[in-house]
């Protein structure tokens, strides 16, 4: 079989994902997770000494805690099957990736299993986030030093 023939057959066989439905699901669940996050933010602003600028940190930590519970009980996978990116893009998805890797590799021991596999899935996010932030901050700092832009 020629390569082009194979490609035609492959395209025919691959089911087209229901784009609109998937996007709507992701929008709905992702939006709901952010609304929960907003409620947690208000909780920290009212009962603790956080401002709108600083409240992101405790909110993210709390949300990761919730996603740990859901992941441990095996509920997050079901949410993920329904919501796609709606559950992966919020920081809950980051928490889920770390927690599920930690649980999964526990049988290999705490050091070699949990310790070295925890960031197996989430590591790429940290690496690319850090590298891109470094480049962006470096460029901006140099530009400020040259007097091209201001802070």
């Amino acid at each position, binding site marked *: 079989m020629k390569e082009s023939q194979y490609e035609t057959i492959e395209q025919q066989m691959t089911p087209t994902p229901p784009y609109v439905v*998937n*996007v709507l699901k*992701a*929008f709905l*669940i*992702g*939006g*709901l*997770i*952010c609304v929960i*996050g*907003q409620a*947690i*933010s208000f909780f920290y602003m009212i009962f603790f000494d956080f401002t*709108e600028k600083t409240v*992101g*940190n405790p*909110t*993210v*930590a709390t949300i*990761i805690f919730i996603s*740990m519970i859901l992941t*441990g*009980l*095996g509920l997050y*996978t079901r949410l993920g099957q329904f919501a796609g*990116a*709606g559950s*992966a*893009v*919020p*920081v*809950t*998805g*980051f*928490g889920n990736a*770390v*927690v599920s890797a*930690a*649980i*999964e*590799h*526990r049988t290999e021991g*705490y050091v070699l299993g949990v310790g070295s596999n*925890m960031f197996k*899935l*989430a590591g*790429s*996010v940290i690496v690319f*986030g850090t590298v*891109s*932030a*470094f480049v*962006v*901050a*470096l*460029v*901006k*700092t140099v530009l400020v030093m040259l007097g091209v832009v201001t*802070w």
Partner: protein
Amino acid sequence: MYTFIFAFLVGGAICAIGQLLMDVGKLTPAHTLSTLVVAGAILDGFGLYEPLIDFAGAGATVPITSFGNSLTHGALAEAEKHGLVGVVTGMFEVTSSGISAAIIFGFIAALIFHSKGKVN
């Protein structure tokens, strides 16, 4: 009250972009999340992410784009004080809670929960 609506709309929109990257762009979830993080870092370089947080609150801080934003933000805040060295030293200043929470809770989860072994 409006904050909740804007959080829903903006947060949902960022997730919808992620879904499009996965479905239409045929990216794996890891590629999608990395792309969004890089996008967040770049947006903050242009000073565009903070206004989004002012507008949408958790709708902008909860999606993973805010991770890129806070990395850049910490680096820039330190760079403003200490020059080029600050770019490296300030990197994790703002975003420490996300990473430490993930490590701590991940470890606790490994202590408490057992692997289900199969995905239903």
